[in-house]
C-alpha cells in the first residue's frame, strides 16, 4: 500500500516536472522567429529599446513578429554559458576574447568578424571618468589618478571586462603619449595600490562608487557613466580624459545554435538591423558611439572628441594582450603582488 502510494507520488512528480520543463520553454519547438540574445551586463536598457524596434521593423517586412529574449550577465560568464549549452542565437559581449572563446569551442564559424560590416562592430565605446559633484579633487587627466590623494574605483581586471578595458586605458594613457613600458608599469602599480576595493563586476563598482560613496574617481564605460550620473541626480559628473581606449564590443551569430534551431534568417536580420540608421540613432541615444558615418556625424554633439586608441596599439592582438597583461603571473599579477610584506 505504502509502496504503491510512493510510486504514484513519484509518477505524478515526474509528469508534472516534465510538463513544467516543456512549458518553461527549456524544450523548445524551434520557432524560427524566436531569438535569444546573450548579452553582457551594462546593455540592458539598450537592448530593450532595440528589440522593440526590431520587432516592429521585422514585422513590417515579413509579416511575422519575432520574439526576442534577453539574457544578461558578466561578459565571460555569458560566454561560458553559451559554450556550456545556453541556446543563444546571437551573442553581444563586452570584448573580443569572450566571443572568440565561443569560436574556439566550435560554436561560431572561424571568420565571424568578417560576417558583418565594420568587423562586426555596430558600435564602439570607451572608458571615461565619473567624479563627485564639481570635481572637488580636480581630476582631469590620467596622470591625476596617480596622485597620492586619489582613490580610483575600477573592477578587478581578472574578473571583469570593464576592469580589463580600464586597465588597458590606464596602460595606453602612458604608452600612447610617449611613455615607456617601465613608466606604464610604475603608473598602473600606483593607481592599483591606491584602489580601496576591486569589485568583481562593473555594476558592483558602480554601487561602491555611487551608493557607498567610496573613492574619488570611477573608471567605467561611457554609456554606464551617463546612466550613473543620471541616477545620482546631481551628485556625480563625467570627466572626459583627453585620450582613452577604443572599446570594441563585438556581436556575432552563434552558428551552431541557429542552424540547429532554424533561426539563422531572423538572427542575421537582427544583427544587420543594428547597422540601419534607425538602430544607429537608438544606439547613439544610449551613449554608445555609432559606427555608421552619417549617424556618427549627426550625433557628434553627444560624444566629446577625445583620442581613442585601439588595443592593437598596445599589442599584436588579443591573445598577446591576455598573455602580456592578464594571464597568471603577467603584468597585472606582478604589479599587484609586489610591495607587499610576506
Amino acid at each position: 500500500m505504502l509502496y504503491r502510494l510512493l510510486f504514484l507520488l513519484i509518477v505524478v512528480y515526474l509528469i508534472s516536472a516534465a510538463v513544467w520543463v516543456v512549458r518553461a520553454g527549456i524544450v523548445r519547438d524551434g520557432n524560427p522567429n524566436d531569438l535569444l540574445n546573450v548579452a553582457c551586463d551594462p546593455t540592458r536598457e539598450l537592448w530593450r529599446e532595440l528589440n522593440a524596434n526590431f520587432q516592429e521593423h521585422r514585422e513590417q517586412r515579413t509579416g511575422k513578429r519575432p520574439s526576442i529574449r534577453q539574457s544578461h550577465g558578466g561578459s565571460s560568464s555569458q560566454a561560458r554559458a553559451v559554450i556550456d549549452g545556453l541556446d543563444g542565437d546571437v551573442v553581444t559581449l563586452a570584448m573580443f576574447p569572450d566571443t572568440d572563446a565561443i569560436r574556439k569551442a566550435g560554436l561560431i564559424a572561424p571568420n565571424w568578424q568578417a560576417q558583418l560590416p565594420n568587423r562586426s562592430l555596430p558600435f564602439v565605446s570607451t572608458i571615461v571618468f565619473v567624479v563627485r559633484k564639481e570635481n572637488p579633487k580636480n581630476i582631469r587627466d590620467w596622470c591625476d589618478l596617480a596622485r597620492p590623494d586619489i582613490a580610483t574605483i575600477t573592477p578587478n581586471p581578472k574578473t571583469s571586462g570593464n576592469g580589463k578595458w580600464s586597465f588597458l586605458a590606464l596602460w595606453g594613457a602612458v604608452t600612447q603619449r610617449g611613455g615607456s613600458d617601465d613608466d606604464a608599469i610604475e603608473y598602473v602599480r600606483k593607481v592599483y595600490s591606491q584602489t580601496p576595493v576591486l569589485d568583481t563586476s562593473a555594476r558592483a563598482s558602480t554601487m561602491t562608487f555611487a551608493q557607498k560613496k567610496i573613492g574619488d574617481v570611477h573608471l567605467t564605460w561611457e554609456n554606464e557613466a551617463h546612466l550613473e550620473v543620471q541616477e545620482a541626480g546631481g551628485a556625480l559628473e563625467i570627466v572626459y580624459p583627453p585620450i582613452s581606449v577604443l572599446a570594441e564590443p563585438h556581436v556575432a551569430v552563434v552558428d551552431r545554435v541557429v542552424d540547429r534551431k532554424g533561426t539563422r534568417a531572423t538572427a542575421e536580420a537582427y544583427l544587420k538591423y543594428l547597422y540601419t540608421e534607425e538602430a544607429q540613432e537608438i544606439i547613439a541615444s544610449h551613449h554608445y558611439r555609432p559606427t555608421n558615418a552619417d549617424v556618427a556625424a549627426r550625433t557628434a554633439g553627444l560624444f566629446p572628441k577625445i583620442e581613442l586608441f585601439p588595443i592593437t596599439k598596445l599589442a599584436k592582438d588579443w591573445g598577446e594582450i591576455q598573455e602580456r597583461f592578464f594571464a597568471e603571473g603577467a603584468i597585472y599579477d606582478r604589479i599587484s603582488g609586489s610591495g607587499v610584506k610576506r
Partner: protein
Amino acid sequence: MSTLNRRVLPGFGLGLSTTILYLSLLVLLPLAACLWKAAELSPAEFWAAVWTPRAVAAYKLTFVASLLAALVNVVVGSIVGWTLVRYDFPFKRLIDALVDVPFALPTAVAGLVYASLYVSDGWLGQFLTPLGIQGAYSRFGIVLVLIFTGFPFVVRTIQPVLEDLDAETEEAAANLGADRWQTFTRVILPTIIPPALTGFTLAFARAIGEYGSVVFISSNKQFETEIAPMLIFARLEAYEYREAAAVASVLLGFSFLMLIFINVLERWSQRHEN
C-alpha cells in the same frame, strides 16, 4: 524469509536506494567531474596552477579567516544555545527563530548589507572608522561575514544536546558536593564538546567555501583580501577550466583533511568522556 524482511521498519530498500541515488547525483557526480577536469592537467601544470604565491596567500587568508569565524561561533553559539535552552524570557521564540536567518538570507545580501554598514559613512562605520577599525573592504570584514554565515550551525547542533541534559543532573552534582565550576567542567562541558565540535566543523567548512557574501565586503586585492574561491572565479573568467578545477580540488582536499581531523577529535573526546 530473507534477511531484508526481518527488519522491524519497512522501506529499507527504498530508503537506501533513494539515499545513494541522491547523494550520487548531488554530491559524488559533481565532485568526480571536478576532479576529472583537474586531472587533465599534468602534475607539473597542476602544481603551477595551485601553488603560486598569490594562491598561497589566498589559501592562508581563507583558512585563517574561516578558523577565526568558526572559533567565535563556537563560543558565542554555545552561549546563545545555552541561553535559549535554559532560560525563559519574553520573545524567546522570536529570538530562537532569528538564529536561522543566516540560513535563509541570500549570502550576497548579507555581504552587501555588512559592507554598507561598515563603510566610513555607514551606520556602524561612522563610529568605528575614527577608531581605526575598518569593517568594510578589510580582512576583519571577511571574518565578520563568515561569522554571520556560520552562526546557526553551532547553536543548532548544541541545542538538542542541552535539552537532553536535565537540570536534575546538575542538581545531583551539586548535591554530591560539586561546586559550580566543577559542575560546569565535569558535567556540562563533556556533554557539549562533541556537538560543539560538530558545529565548529560545519561552520568552518561552510566558511571555506563561502563566496557570495565575501566578494561584496572584501576589497578582493591580491595578497591582501583575496579569498581562495575568488581564485577559482578569476580562473574561470580566463576560460581556464582545468586550473579552476585544480584550485577547487585543493580546497576540497583541505576541507576533507579538516573533516577527518575533527572526526578523530570527536571520537577521542567521546572515548575520553567514558
